[in-house]
């Protein structure tokens, strides 16, 4: 899909400084009409910053932005919208209490004799949806719809704005397979109308499925622009990582080659553990050094199941025993004391305290367990913080940096470090690699494997089946908020087998 048309957007030599950090250093981008263009790079490579320069959120120190050949200065998000650049963010930024139609037409409501005409607004929105073959009740509140539909609504908003450039910032990270399909159909449709689409994602498969070209950033600089058809995945990863490319190969060699003692006795038993509306009662045994993966589609009850174990939600039925002793699950405190640790899938709102430093966040669980009267001595604290920042390769390594300023991958490592400091017997990881770049992902996986070799049991929840299979000794399969089977991962297990299990719904 090579076009010779003038780029819809041409950014070059963009430099952007934040206090103490140069976020962009000569980054650039060429976006042609009628193409889907991937923007790739590790977390911290500058993708978000570049997008925010394009959409007017940040103003660059230097560099040039041309929209349809004309040199412009974008003064803010509204200015960007006026120039035909629309953005759909990962976290939907619409109003959940307003109807779908109101959200699509916000600020451009059709007016009748008595102010805004609800009827005409709904009709206009319904036409837009129908024009894109979407079956959507535009009169319902946006918040009643799934995240996927909310993202489609933001795109419809862009369609109504007649945007010439559409920026999609990680639109698929919280969507399931079917929802991604619908989104891609919509993107393809817009592309064929000549819209230039910039697609930011961590899912390389999706890049190869949807995009014609890609731009790779590294450390705020431009690595290059490539045609998707000409560069393979392995080579692409090399461009993104630079010298770290060997990481993945090393990981694949290390995981699973060291099967733990199969005869190890379980120390944790869950019996009939369940919560209505969350997960049907299930049993689970956890033995030292074993990695148990939880596989299932989004909404199958994976997160709900592990939250009960940790006392993050209160179970209605059943209970958990550690070393034969029942553990009260009213709050996470007793499970923590029994050696459990839980990294939530939502690290921003349930994991980290953004304004506190790396050091404070790392020490939080240990300090909470010791109580307020016994502060961790300054020397121990400094040693622990230093050791874990080094072991997890947290960047920046300055312990007093506020965690909110870190990239997603580094935030995940801080959360993981908080629990590793506790030396847990069971580490529960809910989507530890979601939304982080491939280098950090490999590091997290390496750490999980290393922990299990030291005897820590791990419960591993991930939407990426390959990842679950690569790491786990045993896979628990869930469907429709119910555990349907447990499979041993002794070499014969592959993604097809697990998918078949999910599809059959456990009707063995």
């Amino acid at each position: 899909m090579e076009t010779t048309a003038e780029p819809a957007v041409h950014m070059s030599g963009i430099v952007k400084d934040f206090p103490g950090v140069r976020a962009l250093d000569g980054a650039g981008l060429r976006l042609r009409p009628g193409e889907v263009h991937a923007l790739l790079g590790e977390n911290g490579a500058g993708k978000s910053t570049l997008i925010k320069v394009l959409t007017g959120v940040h103003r660059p120190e230097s560099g040039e932005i041309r929209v349809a050949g004309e040199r412009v200065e974008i003064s803010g998000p509204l200015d960007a919208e006026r120039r035909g650049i629309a953005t759909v963010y990962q976290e939907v930024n619409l109003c959940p209490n307003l109807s779908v139609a109101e959200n699509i037409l916000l600020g451009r409501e059709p007016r009748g004799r008595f102010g805004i005409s609800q009827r005409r607004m709904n009709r206009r929105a319904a036409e837009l949806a129908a024009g894109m073959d979407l079956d959507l009740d535009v009169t319902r509140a946006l918040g009643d719809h799934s995240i996927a539909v909310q993202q489609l609504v933001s795109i419809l908003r862009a369609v109504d704005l007649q945007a010439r450039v559409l920026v999609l910032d990680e639109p698929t990270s919280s969507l399931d397979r079917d929802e991604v399909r619908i989104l891609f159909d919509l993107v393809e449709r817009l592309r064929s109308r000549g819209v230039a689409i910039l697609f930011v994602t961590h899912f390389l498969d999706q890049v190869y499925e949807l995009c014609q070209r890609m731009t790779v950033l590294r450390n705020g600089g431009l690595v290059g622009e490539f045609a998707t058809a000409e560069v393979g995945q392995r080579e692409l990863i090399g461009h993104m990582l630079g010298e770290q490319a060997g990481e993945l190969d090393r990981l694949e060699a290390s995981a699973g080659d060291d099967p733990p003692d199969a005869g190890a006795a379980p120390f944790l038993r869950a019996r009939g553990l369940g919560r209505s509306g969350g997960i049907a009662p299930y049993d689970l045994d956890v033995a030292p050094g074993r990695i148990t993966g939880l596989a299932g589609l989004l909404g199958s009850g994976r997160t709900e199941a592990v939250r009960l174990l940790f006392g993050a939600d209160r179970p209605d039925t059943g209970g958990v025993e550690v070393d034969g002793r029942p553990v009260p699950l009213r709050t996470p405190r007793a499970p923590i004391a029994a050696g459990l640790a839980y990294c939530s899938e939502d690290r921003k709102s349930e994991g980290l305290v953004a304004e506190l430093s790396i050091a404070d966040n790392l020490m939080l669980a240990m300090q909470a367990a010791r109580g307020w009267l016994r502060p961790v001595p300054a020397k121990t604290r400094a040693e622990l913080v230093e050791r874990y920042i080094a072991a997890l390769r947290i960047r920046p390594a300055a312990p007093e940096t506020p965690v909110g300023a870190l990239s997603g991958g580094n935030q995940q490592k801080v959360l993981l470090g908080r629990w590793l400091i506790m030396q847990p017997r069971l580490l529960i990881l809910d989507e530890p690699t979601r939304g982080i770049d491939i280098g950090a992902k490999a590091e997290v996986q390496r750490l999980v494997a290393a922990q299990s070799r030291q005897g820590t049991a791990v419960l591993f929840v991930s939407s990426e089946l390959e990842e679950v299979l690569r790491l786990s000794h045993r896979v628990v399969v869930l469907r429709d908020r119910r555990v349907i089977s447990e499979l041993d991962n002794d070499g014969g297990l592959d993604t097809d087998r697990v998918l078949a299990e999910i599809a059959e719904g456990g009707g063995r």
Partner: protein
Amino acid sequence: MRSAQTRRLVWPLLVLALLVAANAVATPRFLEITVRGGRLYGSLVDILHFGTPLLLISLGMTAVIALRGIDLSVGAVVAVAGAVACTLIESAAEPDSPSAVAGAVAAALAVCALLGLWNGFLVAVLRIQPIVATLILMVAGRGAAQLITGGQITTVRSAPYREIAGGSVATVPVTVIVAAATLLLMWLLVRRTALGLLIEAIGGNAEAGRLAGIRATGLTMAAYTFCGLCAGLAGIIISANTGSADGNNAGLWIELDAILAVVIGGTLLTGGRFSIAGTVLGAIIVQTLSTTVYTMGVPPESTLVFKALVVFGVCLLQSPRFRAQVAAPFRRSGPPRPPSNTATPAPPEEDDVKPEAASIADQEPREVRP
């Protein structure tokens, strides 16, 4: 270590210095401090002395606000404290005996701690929004104070009681000593134990704190109890100063001054990181402002407007965006250089960089917030 926090104190400090300087120019003997009858006198001493109640309440308020709460009832608790103490002293057999006064003060403080605990119970256990939960006591507390004093202004002539506000130890007013002791106690509690970290974690992200194993209920109740206790202390001092208990007017609107002091000190109403030093500065600024109004002879009808203008100025100064915009015309071209710890060399200066670009660079990166 807490350099960002410290830097935030610069602007309130500057405002305080300006206020003091303005006073020194307008009132010739403003900076003078003399010793008369074994006690320090002077405008600066007065500011600290009369500022004690506000400072005490602001300290309690800081703990509550750091936990993403607020306590509107402190003014009412001030009234209750005075009412309880004065009524007990009046009904004692010997109002002039130090033990009777000590008993009355202890009883009043206990009542105030209980009132604070009640607020904490409503917020932490019953999960009522702090502003609503403490509004209940804000209204009911004044009613209770008036019931205790029988609707009258109770006056006491007990000398030991009056000494609480009027006395001095080694020339230093007792009030200032009480304030300093409370300040030291709070600082030791939050910065020498892990209390400060746990409060900041819960205030910054309650769910993250819960999942890390912090018991928020107890912490929250303790913070409101502490706030009630501080308000009680302030109430005793206010009542001892006038030798009376006025259920209607004692501590009226002091909750707003206290919230103001906390905010000027750099603690956000959204909770999380807090600054005790900032609160102290904030309380002193608010008190200096009140003193300035009197010493400069601002007509009474315009005092509120005058106060509001100064507070507005402080808030503007604390906004990085405002500062940058004011500074922009004075800066030559080019953005501020990144500190030398970045490996990348600075770019050559470009003439076409607008001054506004420099102003934006002063802001924090936006990614920090979801």
